[in-house]
């Protein structure tokens, strides 16, 4: 799958990329929300977005809302250092919200599978 990773922290971005590439995904990286929007404009083939929450200029939630406003309905997974439940309450339309921790090598692929399965269930 082609996945866009948005994280302003370069190392965190590389870590997520390493996990996803290990799963066989093709990963594009953006260092902020604006760069992400630009990339999405150029790369129509991107199938899913994984974004950090807190970034300068525009947060992950703002990016999510902006994309939905533009009519882009790609699956969106938000990463955060805090309790994900509070974030889901704030933005219930998010496809998934997971905690940044050292188990991301398992939690992230699992979240992607769950999100894609849920999406398939709707379209079928």
């Amino acid at each position: 799958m082609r996945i866009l990773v948005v994280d302003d922290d370069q190392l965190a971005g590389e870590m997520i990329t390493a996990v996803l590439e290990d799963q066989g995904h093709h990963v594009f990286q953006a260092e902020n929300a604006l760069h992400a929007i630009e990339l999405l404009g150029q790369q129509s083939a991107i199938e899913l977005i994984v974004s950090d929450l807190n970034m300068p200029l525009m947060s992950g939630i703002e990016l999510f809302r902006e994309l939905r406003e533009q009519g882009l309905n790609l699956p969106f997974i938000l990463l955060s250092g805090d309790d994900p439940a509070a974030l889901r309450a704030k933005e219930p339309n998010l496809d998934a919200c997971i905690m940044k921790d050292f188990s991301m090598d398992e939690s992230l692929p699992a979240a992607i599978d769950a999100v894609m399965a849920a999406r398939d269930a709707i379209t079928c």
Partner: protein
Amino acid sequence: MNLNKPTLQNKIARLRINFVNQLPVRLEQAQQQMAILSSESPINVTALQELHRAFHSLNGTGKSFGFTALADVAEHAEHYMQGIIDLSVQAMPSDLLGILSEFLSQLQAQMHILIASDNAQDHTQSSPYFEIGQSDTEIFQGQGPLIYICDDEPEQVHYLVHQLRFLGYNVEHFTDTSSFREAVLTKRPDAVIMDVFFPHGRTAGTDELVSIKDVTGHKLPAIVLSGRKVFEARLSAVRAGCAAYFVKPANPMDLASALDELVGDKLQEPLRILIVDDEPEVAEYHSLILEEAGMLVHQIHHPEKIFEALEVFSPDLMLVDMYMPVCNGAELAAIVRQIPEYVGLPIVFLSTETNAQKQFSAMEAGVDGFITKPVVPAELVSAVALRAERMRTLRGLMARDSLTGLYNHTTTTEILVSSLAHAVRHQEKLVMVMLDLDAFKSVNDTHGHMAGDQVIVALSRLLKHRLRNTDVIGRYGGEEFALLLKDISSDTAEKLVNELREDFSEIIFNVGQKQFSCTFSAGISMYPGCNRAEDLRMAADTALYQAKSQGRNQVVVSKMCDE
């Protein structure tokens, strides 16, 4: 150098080390924001936000890498900061700066703990996450470089694909450019072998490479395999940035050496520099300059800690302050030079000493160079890099066999001793394999020494591709190889070596018009069971001898090492 593709674990381990190495810079930046906060009134809101972001980033990234103690401090700081930002400027608490600097010093303390524990490497090894599936030969699967071959005539490449697989490559074959493209976008290979001519275009293969580069922004390391010698095809290959051009039918051995050249120079380990300076700030400053240039730096502020640092960090070069309490730089250099292992270690002095006579007397103590304070960053970097790299090259030449690039006899023996000590300390298993080519003398006698070299190189290639980064491969003698496999059972090792043996026996060597193949026998011993290096070697040797006498082309596990 190890040619194996980095696994996820290795990548993450490297990123963790990078994170720890970047901590000083990150905290320094936070410190600068603090300086702005304390010097400006009314309070600088941008600096507040920058600090909040710095804490947030340390929290999130710290957690991602499993540095929870550090991340917990950062999380507290982040939450506190969030509360502050939500307040109006007038309502700022009066002890704000005090609380923030307390957070920063806590973070600094965590940073020192991480740096002191040898760059976080130990954490990754002890983390349960890294023990997943370490039980069977599966851990050896997919170790070799991933190679995509794109050619529309399967019968032409069938033989090639098989031979490359026996040499330990992960080969996938595509017969059309669109499925090849799809595969590249899903999983990027380490190298590509591409035909030029396809039914839908005279240069469709190389055109595809150019197009993939345009889309992904990265050039694929590629070799062209073409049925034609025409100028047009060769030009298209050059334009697509291909490294080599082979005309069919290509010899798999030649292709393999071209592939290894493409894949091999990917991972250059950073130079390791040990700084000895009694003033932490000065050490920190030099360390920042060198880290900025991509080097890995370890600092000690007390000369007494030198032995521990040398052993744990094993530096390529030592940068020493000339004037220190307890023991000065020249004395320290003399002490280090008295240890046989470090006779060759480059030592560079940092000093304000411009007096040539004094510099000369330091040279006599075994110092390789002087850098005069105040330091010009570019000079420091080049002086250090030059000497450290030369040291690496020399060490490499001394430690490795020139034909195969594997460790030579002496180095293998040394590593055997240190690996066994490590295994005993950490209560891990260690397997030793002695491996010897069967009837190698007759290969040399029948086909010549060039053919013999071909066989040795092929076996070393297979071993490099199939074993893990952490395993040790040595050329022990003419046609004898020694392997050290860490933390696996003798059953797994036996299964693995048998797989290698079967693959190797399928490799076909070409000498002129003649073809031949070759086999090997192997003996396996292990710790626990054999508890001394000499016992391990003897037991593996005896098992190997038994394998030979039972008819060769087989693997025997030593009975002397039953657990």
